[in-house]
C-alpha cells in the first residue's frame, strides 16, 4: 500500500504540470471572457491583475503547486467561489454515477461473458458477441438520447434529466454502464475460454463438483485478477464518459463543470477538476493493485 502511495504522488505531480501547461497554452484569456464583451480594456486588465494572470508563468505555477499541496485549489474565475467548494458540491453526483456504472458493467459484463464462454460457438454466444460489439461501438451520445426518447418521451417511465432521485440515475447508468459492460463481457469471455480446457477444471468435474460451481468458483476465480485490472482501467474511460453523460442528462457533476470551465478558460477550476479526477483514477487503480494478492494466492508468494 505504501508502494502504491509512493507511485501515486509522482503521477499527480506530473498531471499537475501537464494540466497547468496545457491550460495556459490554449488560446483564450479568462479575464476577457469573464469581463464580457461590453467591458472596457481597463476592466479586463483589472480582472487579469486580480486573478494574478499578469504574473510570470513560472511564478503562477509555483503558486499553484504550493497551494495545491495544502489542498488549496484557488477561486473560480467564472463564479468567484472557492474551487474546492465548487468541486465538493458536484463530486457526489459524479461518484454516484461512476460507482453504479462500474457495478453494472461488472455484473452484466461478467454474466454475459460467462454465458458466452460456456456456450462457446452456440447461438447465444454469437448473439452476446454481436450485442456487445454494438454496445462498445455505438456513441454514448446517441445511446443517451435514444434511451431518453424511448423511456421518457414514449413510455413516460423515467425522468429524462436531472440528478435528484435514484430514478434519475437509471438512464445515465445504463448509458455508461452498458458500454463498459460490452468490453468487460468480451474480456471475460476471452479469459474464460483460455482456462475452460485446463486440467484442473476437468479434475474438479471428475470429483463431482457441480458445473455451476466449476465455472463460478474454479474458472472465474482465475480470471478475477485481469478482470479487476480491466475494471480499474475502465474507470478512467468512465470518468471521461461522465463529461458527456452529465451534459446530456443535466446531472450537476464534475464532468459538466469541467466543460463549462474549459469554455470559460476558468484556469483554477480546470486544474482543480483534473487534479481531483486524476486522484480518483489513481486511487482506484492503486486499490486494484493492492487487492490483486487477495484475489490470487499465487501473487502473495
Amino acid at each position: 500500500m505504501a508502494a502504491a502511495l509512493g507511485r501515486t504522488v509522482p503521477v499527480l505531480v506530473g498531471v499537475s504540470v501537464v494540466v497547468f501547461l496545457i491550460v495556459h497554452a490554449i488560446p483564450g484569456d479568462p479575464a476577457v471572457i469573464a469581463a464580457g464583451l461590453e467591458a472596457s480594456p481597463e476592466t479586463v486588465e483589472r480582472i487579469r491583475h486580480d486573478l494574478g494572470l499578469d504574473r510570470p508563468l513560472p511564478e503562477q505555477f509555483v503558486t499553484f503547486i504550493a497551494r495545491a499541496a495544502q489542498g488549496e485549489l484557488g477561486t473560480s474565475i467564472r463564479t468567484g467561489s472557492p474551487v474546492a467548494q465548487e468541486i465538493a458540491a458536484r463530486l457526489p453526483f459524479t461518484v454516484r454515477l461512476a460507482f453504479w456504472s462500474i457495478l453494472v458493467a461488472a455484473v452484466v459484463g461478467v454474466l454475459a461473458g460467462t454465458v458466452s464462454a460456456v456456450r462457446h460457438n452456440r447461438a447465444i454466444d454469437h448473439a452476446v458477441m454481436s450485442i456487445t460489439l454494438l454496445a462498445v461501438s455505438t456513441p454514448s451520445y446517441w445511446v443517451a438520447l435514444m434511451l431518453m426518447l424511448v423511456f421518457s418521451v414514449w413510455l413516460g417511465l423515467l425522468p429524462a434529466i436531472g440528478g435528484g432521485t435514484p430514478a434519475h440515475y437509471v438512464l445515465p447508468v445504463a448509458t455508461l454502464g452498458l458500454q463498459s459492460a460490452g468490453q468487460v463481457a468480451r474480456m471475460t469471455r476471452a479469459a474464460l475460454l483460455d482456462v475452460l480446457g485446463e486440467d484442473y477444471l476437468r479434475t474438479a468435474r471428475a470429483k463431482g463438483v457441480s458445473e455451476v460451481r466449476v465455472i463460478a468458483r474454479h474458472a472465474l476465480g482465475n480470471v478475477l485478477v485481469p478482470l479487476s485490472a480491466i475494471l480499474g482501467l475502465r474507470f478512467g474511460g468512465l470518468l471521461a464518459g461522465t463529461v458527456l453523460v452529465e451534459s446530456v442528462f443535466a446531472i450537476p457533476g464534475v464532468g459538466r463543470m469541467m466543460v463549462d470551465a474549459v469554455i470559460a478558460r476558468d484556469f483554477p477550476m480546470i486544474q482543480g477538476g483534473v487534479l481531483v479526477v486524476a486522484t480518483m483514477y489513481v486511487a482506484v487503480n492503486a486499490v486494484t493493485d493492492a487487492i490483486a494478492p487477495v484475489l490470487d494466492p499465487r501473487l502473495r508468494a
Partner: protein
Amino acid sequence: MMLRRIAAVGARSCGAALLVGGLIAVGCGGGSTGSAGGSAAVRDTLIFAAPADATTLDPHNTTDTESDQVIGMVFEGLLGFDEKMKIVGRLAETWAVAPDGVTWTFHLRHGVSFHDGTPFNADAVRRSFARVLDPAQKHKRLSLFVMLDRVDVVDDYTVNIVTKYPFGAFEPTMAHISATILNPTVADRFGADFGRSAPATSGTGPYRVVSWKKDQEIVLERVENHWRGTAPTRRLIYRPIPEGAARVLALEAGDVDVISRVPPPELKRLEASGRVTVLRTASIGAQQFRFNVTKKPLNDVRVRQAISYAIDRRAIVDRLLTGFATPSTSALTPIMRGYANLGEIAQDLEKARTLLAEAGYPNGFQTKIATTPRYPMGVELAEAVAAQLKVVGIDAAIQVYDWGTMVQFWQGLPPEKNGQEIFIMGAGASTADADWGLRPIFMTAPTNENNYGYYSNAEFDRVIQAAMRETDEVKRLALYKRAQQIVYREDPGAVWLFDNFYIVATRTGVDAVTPSPLGVVTFERAVVH
C-alpha cells in the same frame, strides 16, 4: 421646469443585458412540476430549462443572459422595459428631466420593501448606484454607467440622478438590468459575495431566491402581495440542461415546462407535434458577418458593397433558419429605439460583379470567414455565405473557433495584431437603444475593444456624437437614420443577414409565458395547467 412628466405604468418587465456583439440566444427559465400527473388543476410550480446555470445574481456583475433571466424576476429598477421595449416606471412612479438636460428627478413608489422587509427608499437608490460606481468594488457593469455623475437624495421618496453631460439614452440605461436596485442591508453584509448564493441575493422583484444548487437548480418563490400583484405560480425552478437535443426531449417528456434556445431544426417538428407551443418575439439581436475594414481588399467600400449584394438573405433565412428569422432591413432591429427601415438588401449578382471589377477584382479574391458554433447555426451560416460568395469569385476559407478563442480577437487589439477578415457577430444592444447599438460598435476607435472591425467613417462619427447629446426626439431619430444609412448601405460595416426571433418552447398548457426581445422570459403572470 420639467420637460417631461411621465406616469409610470406598473407593468412587468425584465430588464436584461445582452452583450453588444455577444450571444443573442439565451436561456431563461420557467418551470413546472415534474411528473405530477395530468390533472387540469393549476400547478404551483413552473420549471424552466436553459443551456447553462446563472453565473451570478449580482445585477452589477452580470454579463450573461442566463443570469439576467433570474435577476429579472428578483430585482427591479427605477425604470423597466415592457414586452414591446417601451420604457415603463417600476420603482419610480414618475420621473422627469430638468431643462439643464442632466438632472433627472425620480419620485419613488411608496410602500415597497425588499425581500427581507428592508424598506425601499431614496437611500437604497443612492447606495445601489454608489455600489456600481465605486471602482474599488470592481463591478463588471461599471462602464455602462460612465455618464453618471452623482445621485442626490432629495427626500425619502425623491432622488435626483445627475449625468455628466446630456445623455440621449439615459432612460434605457436606467431600465437596464444592471440599474436595478439592490437591498442595501444585504449588499453591505455580503459585499463582493452579494448575488453568489440565495441568502446573499435580495431585491424588490415579484420572486425571491429560496435556494441555488450550482448547475442543478435555482428555486424562486413568489412574493405575496407584491406591489405588481401576486404571481399566479408559487414557485419557479431554473434547471440548466446544456444539450439542445436533451432540452427538447425533457420538454416532450414533461420534465420541464419551458425551454429556451431550441435548436432551429427542431422548431417545425415541435410546432406540428401539438404538445408544444413555440413562442417567438422579435429580438433586439441581429446576425451579421462583420468586416475588418483594415484588411485589403475589405478596406475598399466597393468590395464590401459587392459582398453585401452577393448574399441571398432570403435563402439563408428560409433554408437554414426554416423561416424562424426575418431578413435584416437596417443596422438595427425594428424593436430598437431609433431604428429606421432601409429595406432588405436583395441579392444582385450583376451589381456585385460590377463593383468587384471597379475595385480591381474582376476575378474575385481570397479571404477568410471566422465563426463560432456558440452562435446558433454559426458554422452553417458561414458555409452558406462562403458558398454564395464563391458565385462571384470570392474564395472564402472558413475558420471555426470556440467562444473563448473567438473573443480573443475582440478584446481591444490594434489592427496589426488582428488577423480576422470577415467574422460572425450577433449584435443586440442591451439597452434596446440606437446609441448603444451603434456608437460603441462603429464609431472610430484606435483599438477594437467594441468596434471589432475597426470601422471608421467621419460623417458617421459626427452624426453619432451629435445624436448622443441630442435630447429632442425628432432630431435624434433623424440623426440615427442618417447613421444607419451610412453603415448599412453606403459604407457597409457588415453584412446584416437577419433579425432574430427570441424563441422559447412551452409545454401545451403553460400560459402567459412572455419572451422579451432582450432574450429573457418573464414568468410573473405564467399559469401552469
